[in-house]
């Protein structure tokens, strides 16, 4: 009895590691450690400037209690409204152009040359962040909301067109085939077979893009593309933290409102 017990008691167990090969495992750990050391080591931080910043940071935080909506009310209102206009028209225009491009970029809908061309358009418009596009739009179209509108429309095209094309490629082919078999024309086929299948998701994504465009419209102003960003930049430059706090709170409020209503609309279209 006693000897039997001994052999079974001494069996040890350890959780098997996530990465089996010890060489790779330790290699990754050491590599990560070296990377982090290098990253921090090469980071050029002016600590005295950071220390100077601490009281300024405290002033900024305290500016939220209470924020100052009043003294720059006119500028803030103009900026916010301009941001909203940019958001709305760029979302609508962006989606409007992305529909033909998205149809072209769906493999099951388009002949190969159209497919490749549409995919290329989408890839190009997706590559650069909206703010870089806005930078160039300002150079071309001058300061003001038009540049922001162009930048956000291009961003919307890349985002929405790609998702639309993917959604069409994922649709149920049997429903599409059935409508085609009735002798429907191409547009009738789009209207009866494709549209009902992709519409609910696309409305949801449209609302989501509206949300993204509002957030982006708040920054295109930093490079001169119109909207609240310019007002915010000015108030930071003048160290008017209480106005800046007010603007930030308004942005947060509007984003929350858009998000809440978009989730409501998404439930409604299901």
């Amino acid at each position, binding site marked *: 009895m006693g000897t039997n017990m001994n052999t079974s008691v001494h069996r040890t167990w350890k959780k098997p590691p996530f990465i089996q090969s010890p060489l790779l495992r330790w290699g990754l750990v050491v590599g990560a450690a070296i990377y982090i050391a290098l990253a921090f080591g090469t980071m050029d931080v002016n600590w005295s*400037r950071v220390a100077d*910043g601490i009281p300024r940071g405290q002033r*900024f935080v305290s500016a939220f209690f209470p924020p100052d909506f009043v003294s720059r009310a006119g500028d803030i209102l103009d900026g916010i409204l*301009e941001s909203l206009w940019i958001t709305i*028209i760029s979302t609508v225009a962006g989606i409007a152009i992305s529909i033909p491009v998205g149809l072209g970029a769906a493999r099951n809908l388009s002949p190969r040359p159209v497919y490749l061309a549409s995919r290329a358009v989408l890839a190009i418009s997706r590559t*650069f962040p909206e703010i870089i596009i806005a930078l160039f739009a300002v*150079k071309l179209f001058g300061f003001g*909301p038009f540049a922001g509108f162009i930048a956000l429309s291009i961003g919307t095209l890349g985002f929405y067109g790609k998702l639309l094309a993917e959604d069409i490629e994922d649709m149920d082919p049997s429903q599409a085939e059935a409508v085609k078999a009735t002798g429907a024309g191409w547009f009738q086929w789009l209207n009866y077979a494709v549209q009902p299948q992709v519409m609910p998701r696309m409305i949801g994504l449209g609302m989501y893009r509206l949300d993204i465009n509002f957030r982006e419209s708040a920054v295109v102003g930093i490079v001169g593309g119109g909207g609240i960003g310019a007002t915010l930049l000015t108030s930071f430059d003048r160290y008017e933290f209480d106005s*800046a706090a007010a603007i930030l709170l308004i942005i947060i409020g509007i984003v929350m409102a858009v998000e809440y209503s978009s989730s409501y609309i998404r439930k409604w279209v299901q």
Partner: protein
Amino acid sequence: MPVAQTGSDRIWKRRDRRTQLTVWAVQLSCLMVFVYCWSLVSDKTIWEFVYDAPHQAGDMASRMVPPAWDYMDQLWVAIWDTINIATLGTMMAVVLAFPIAFLAARNTTPSVVFVRPIALFIIVSSRSINSLLWALMLVTIIGPGVLAGVLAIGFRSIGFCAKLLYEAIEEIDTTQVEAVTATGASGPQVLHYGIVPQILPAFAGISVFRWDINIRESTVLGLVGAGGIGLQLNASINNVAWTQVSLILLVILGTVIVSEWVSAKVRHAII
């Protein structure tokens, strides 16, 4: 009912009268809002510039070629900084988002009335403010440099990661949690054995996904002075050095493509 009887015919309409009128009203008001917004934007536009834009664009493009390849020597440090901003910022965000997500998830929060709203408010404010705005704030407070960029990316990403993560936590399989609780495990043990294993793949996926987005975003933080390749872009545009600008755009393009490739590979390895 959209079906009505008139004599021997049964009329069918897609919608009944009230729904149809509502639909028309909604469509009309959307159209009016759009036209109104357009007229406001159009008022603030100098159309001469817009008409001239194609010509300008052609001119700009012709001045961009060929890219100033020898300028590349000065870009390596900027690329290194850009990657560091994205990576360290993501790491910071992930570490902070983990506890916040547990506080925000309905099924793990210690208090639905007190703690959850605070956690949700942190998530919403972090998400609502673009990383460029965070950078703007941080540059004003702690001065320009890479540190402001890292913090900006970090602050922006906390909300993103925490939101996706707490949604994953709320969708976990409760029977597994019950089974662990039934063994008599304490709260932290239930967390460790019942919940964490279920959300770990989602957590890793979210981190890599956000890192990919952050690479893209960190390329522009330099526009407000928060380090990275955006600094060079801004400087080159201000100096109208278009051949340098085109090189920087190519570098950004390359970085974005490589990061997309890396994140796809890593996600593939995890899942």
